[in-house]
């Protein structure tokens, strides 16, 4: 496998997706956040920074998810459907390089997207900090432009890396609509994994218990990546937790990308 080819495919995906939807996405995010900060500043007293911190992280997650799913599901299936893959695969490009390049390209897009959103986020928080009096700021749990918020942004990124892998996996053998439904379904189900684990309390020692436990371990644990509440309330997130969660996300995503490569390499383009 050639790293250079993967990089070239990735660069083309990045260029295309930035022009496709990412710009609108970023403008949408900026308008939402700046608009909300002014509005909330008018309505609440003392809590506005916390609300903006929460809202900003949630919006980054949702807007990032939008990019990851809606570009991710089309990464391979759109190429196949529109037959652009034909000319590409007649070049010295292995199918595995194409799939991994596509993944890397979207990962880069999402990373840049998150970085720009984080810059807007810190800009708004910095402005809020600058415009408030020192006496007022003493009531805050943490400074407005708290660098620890980046931990939550980082884990949103790891989560999106996993979401892209899920979308890519489904898009190697399914239509964009179905891939979107499957990916979104897994994303939602992944947030409720803990309920599945606790199901054993309800069902006792029946075989259903083994089934729910198996599903719990198979489903991606999306809740693990969500430390937004903790960082907004200035609670610590340990380095150990960050490392384990990163490895979990990376291994899960790598397995899905490997499966996508396997499926895509054997596929006939009718």
């Amino acid at each position, binding site marked *: 496998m050639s790293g*250079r*080819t993967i990089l*070239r495919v990735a*660069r*083309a995906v990045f*260029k*295309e997706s930035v*022009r*496709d939807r990412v710009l609108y996405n970023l403008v949408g995010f900026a308008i939402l956040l700046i608009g909300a900060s002014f509005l909330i500043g008018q309505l609440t007293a003392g809590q506005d920074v916390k609300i903006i911190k929460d809202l900003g992280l949630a919006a980054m997650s949702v807007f990032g998810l939008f990019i990851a799913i809606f570009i991710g599901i089309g990464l391979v299936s759109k190429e196949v459907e*529109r*037959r*652009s*893959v*034909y*000319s*590409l*695969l*007649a*070049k*010295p*490009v*292995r199918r595995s390089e194409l799939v991994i390049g596509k993944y890397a390209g979207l990962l880069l897009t999402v990373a840049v997207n998150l970085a720009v959103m984080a810059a807007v986020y810190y800009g708004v928080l910095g402005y809020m900090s600058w415009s408030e009096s020192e006496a007022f700021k003493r009531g805050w749990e943490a400074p407005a432009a708290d660098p620890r918020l980046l931990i939550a942004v980082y884990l949103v990124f790891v989560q999106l890396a996993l979401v892209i892998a899920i979308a890519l996996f489904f898009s190697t053998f399914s239509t964009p609509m179905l891939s979107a439904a499957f990916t979104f379904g897994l994303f939602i189900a992944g947030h409720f994994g803990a309920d599945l684990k606790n199901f054993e309390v309800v069902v006792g020692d029946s075989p259903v218990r083994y089934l729910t436990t198996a599903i719990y371990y198979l489903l991606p644990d999306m809740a693990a990546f969500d430390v937004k509440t903790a960082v907004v309330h200035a609670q610590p997130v340990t380095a150990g937790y960050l490392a384990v969660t990163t490895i979990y996300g990376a291994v899960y995503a790598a397995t899905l990308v490997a499966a996508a490569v396997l499926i895509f390499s*054997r596929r*006939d*383009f*009718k």
Partner: protein
Amino acid sequence: MHPAIATDRLTKDFPVGFWRKRPYRALDGLTLDVSPGEVFGFLGPNGAGKTTTLKLLMQLIFPTSGRAFILGRPVGDLSVRRRIGYLPENPYFYDYLTAEELLTYFASLFDLRGADRRARVSSLLDEVGIGGERRLQLRKFSKGMVQRVGIAQALINDPEVVFLDEPMSGLDPLGRRDIRELILRLRERGKTVFFSSHILSDAEALCSRVAILAGGRLAATGKLTELLAYEVRGWELVVTGIAADALERFSPPITKVTPIADGRYVLEVRADAQPAGLIGELASAGASIVSLNPVHTTLEEIFVSKVQAAGSAREGALA
């Protein structure tokens, strides 16, 4: 020397049906050789298996059985793809890249860099007639312009063998002429061109050899001159300086007399007649000979007869 393209009993089945899948044979035991430097026309009606063959050669689909080689190497070999170019049928590229960016991207996959790459991209876009539009995103391109970009991308690596699937489709008459001239230039540069088409006049104008595919099977193959000269249907003689009633005297060999301008007549002569003897007799009756041409079976007639024969053979086999 290896053939530029060789297939050996290449066969492809596609599963059809929703519940109980049955195999449908799209290509049935195709064995074919194309020599280096040839312009080879791969002809057949829609659904004959032309695109299936091209996809097998490009490894976009995998054969059920049989083998295929390009430049002496198996088609799966990545090194082969450095030396070939491919234009898919009705090509489609990335909406948000410009023509220039697309070609730059594809050129980079062949390790072309810097000034070389820029020069190659620019000269190819000139060659296929994309001017100022090269900086427009491809979603703004018409079908004919996308086809031109498709041809440019197939030539980006200066390939030894070029595969063109229906290269004239979607082009206006001017565009078709441009592509025809481009294929001729490729031939002059010693490239092998393998193109599929159902437009026979293109094949007649360009190809040194053709294969006719029907119902997934090879119905005929050979040099165009052989296929066409094979069946001389008669002769066409243009004469002047003789009256129409004088011509009636020659009526067994001459089957039809058609007057054209300025006292000239077109005479249709039977295939078994000896034109030399007839010319002598006409000359002695005072006629001047303007031209004499054999009337060949056209490629279209050969095509229709082969395709119909293949169709009835297939029906017979199924019955």
